[in-house]
């Protein structure tokens, strides 16, 4: 286990009587790409701003490299930020923007020139030194903001939705570049986004936030395969949640649906608590003819909608009692098979119990 770089202990921030951040405790390790993921207004920016020193916690403790910095002003912290709006200084050239932090720490002359050069090379902006920020495209401005922060070789880099203003294609491209740079400089990144795809592709670990706290903290794979709350299950990827009467049968949890059907999931997948549910991802479901034999969980229904998405086809199946389930199938046989499922057809849905997941009691009700 690498050293802990950033530690938050029970950090709470209130604005008036509104709680923006509600008792967050987490450790971020040295060199990690750590992401705060969550919907708008869940407190991501506020959390980041407290780490950066722009906001003081109402209560709780923040440590950087083992040192308590809870009330240390921003300019004394070994942390740099890439702001969502970039916040480049409009009156300074790109060179002076990038050199700003170096000059503040008393570095002079040739060292400034060479380090700014290195930083601009890293973000592939050599030759732009003399321009003003207004003469850059959004993607270039974002890279200058990154260079301006990285050139100081901070212990931790905070990034607040740095790709938010870019179009989809540039965003993907910059995402890959960010990840490359992070590997190259091996600085701890704390990254804020509301885009789950972005979070999944770049992060080592993700904290999925909701209403001021995080519901689950795990690697991308675990978050997808084993979400532990309803919120995480529906925020990260698509999910089918099966709600009903909870029971126990040997090594399995059982949920008796309103229709009377019973679905199962192994207890080893997690604790269902008293108000949890069993879930299953759309691609783990298999569609069968109503008469076909199957093992494991099985529900009957009617196809009500299909949409062709290239790589896969997505079906909406309505079961007994109005239960709607999403199913996706790879289009491997599409070119040779003519009998795809059509709206109105009766089908059976099956999946292995161990392919599902179990969500527990909702933390925020």
């Amino acid at each position: 286990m690498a050293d802990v770089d950033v530690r938050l202990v029970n950090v709470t921030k209130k604005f008036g009587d509104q709680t923006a951040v509600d008792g967050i405790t987490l450790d971020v390790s040295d060199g990690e790409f750590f992401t705060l993921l969550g919907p708008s207004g869940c407190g991501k920016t506020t959390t980041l701003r407290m780490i950066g020193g722009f906001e003081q916690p109402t209560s709780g403790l923040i440590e950087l490299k083992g040192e308590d910095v809870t009330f240390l002003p921003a300019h004394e912290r070994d942390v740099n930020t890439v702001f969502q709006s970039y916040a480049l200084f409009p009156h300074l050239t790109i060179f002076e923007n990038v050199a700003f932090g170096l000059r503040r720490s008393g570095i002079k002359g040739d060292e400034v020139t060479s380090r700014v050069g290195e930083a601009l090379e890293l973000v592939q902006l050599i030759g732009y030194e003399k321009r003003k920020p207004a003469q850059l495209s959004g993607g270039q401005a974002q890279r200058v903001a990154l260079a301006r922060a990285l050139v100081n070789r901070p212990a931790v880099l905070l990034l607040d939705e740095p790709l938010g203003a870019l179009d989809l294609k540039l965003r993907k491209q910059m995402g890959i570049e960010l990840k490359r740079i992070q590997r190259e400089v091996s600085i701890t990144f704390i990254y804020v986004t509301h885009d789950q795809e972005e979070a999944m592709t770049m992060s080592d670990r993700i904290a999925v936030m909701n209403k001021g706290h995080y519901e689950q903290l795990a690697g991308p794979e675990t978050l997808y395969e084993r979400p532990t709350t309803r919120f995480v299950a529906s925020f990260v990827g698509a999910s089918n949640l099966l709600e009903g009467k909870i029971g126990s049968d040997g090594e399995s949890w059982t949920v008796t649906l309103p229709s009377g059907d019973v679905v199962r999931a192994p207890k080893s997948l997690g604790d269902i608590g008293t108000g949890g549910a069993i879930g299953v991802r759309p691609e783990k479901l298999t569609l069968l003819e109503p008469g076909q034999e199957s093992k494991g969980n099985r529900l009957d229904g009617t196809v009500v909608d299909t949409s062709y998405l290239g790589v896969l086809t997505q079906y909406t199946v309505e079961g007994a009692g109005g239960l709607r389930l999403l199913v996706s199938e790879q289009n491997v046989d599409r070119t040779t098979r003519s009998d795809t499922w059509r709206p109105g057809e009766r089908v059976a849905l099956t999946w292995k119990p161990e392919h599902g997941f179990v969500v527990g009691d909702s933390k925020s009700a």
Partner: protein
Amino acid sequence: MLRWLGRNALRAYTGLALVYLLLPIFIVALFSFNDPVGKTNYTWVGFTLSHWANLFAIPGLLDSVVVSLRIAFISTLAATTLGTLAALALVRYQFRGRPATSLFIFLPLATPEIILGASLLTLFVAIGQPPFFPLNEFTILIAHITFNISYVIVTVRARLSGFDRRLEEASADLGADGWQTFWRVTFPLILPGIAAASLLAFSLSIDDFVITNFTAGRTTTFPMFVWGSARVGVPPQVNAIGTIFFVVAVSAVAIGSFLQRRRA
């Protein structure tokens, strides 16, 4: 056809408006080259450069110009400094009495000059009968700073409210303390606003007559000199000085906007 008319009517109208605005100034400048007969300088007699050559031949004229310039410089400097700091405080901080302060700032702008002048006179007299608080250049200065602060605050505040605070956070993030952030980020960015404010303050101070007249005591500023001499006939030198003021002011504004355009 209608289009042609529309475009050219606008041009003609603009031209007329400019002529209307500039004609009096042109006449003032022209008559500084006049060679009048007698004391009044209202009819064109002949061309001469002698008033420009003997600019300060009129007794008291030079003194009054010097007094006016001194008051304008000092009151501009003081009002710009105090007004900028006040604008920063009003935009940046929440404090008790902030709404009231915002209101009071508008009072000198909204009050008729004659009321402001009379009330300042009352104040100075009430503070202490001469010679404890004599009316002189110093009281004029106080009066000018008083109304100029309001103009500076309003101008600088407009510039500040469009200011992106995140730039200051970015500066702090990069290791600059409050002082460095102010001088390296905030100040350069609001400088055009401060410059505009000080130009305004300077021009308001140098041609103020009403308030100055109330608070001057026996001091004579340039506008007061002109007023005084108008009763017996304004000498052409006054026209010459007025022309100089006008040219300097227009150049200052032109240079200012040129610099600002190059910066952007």
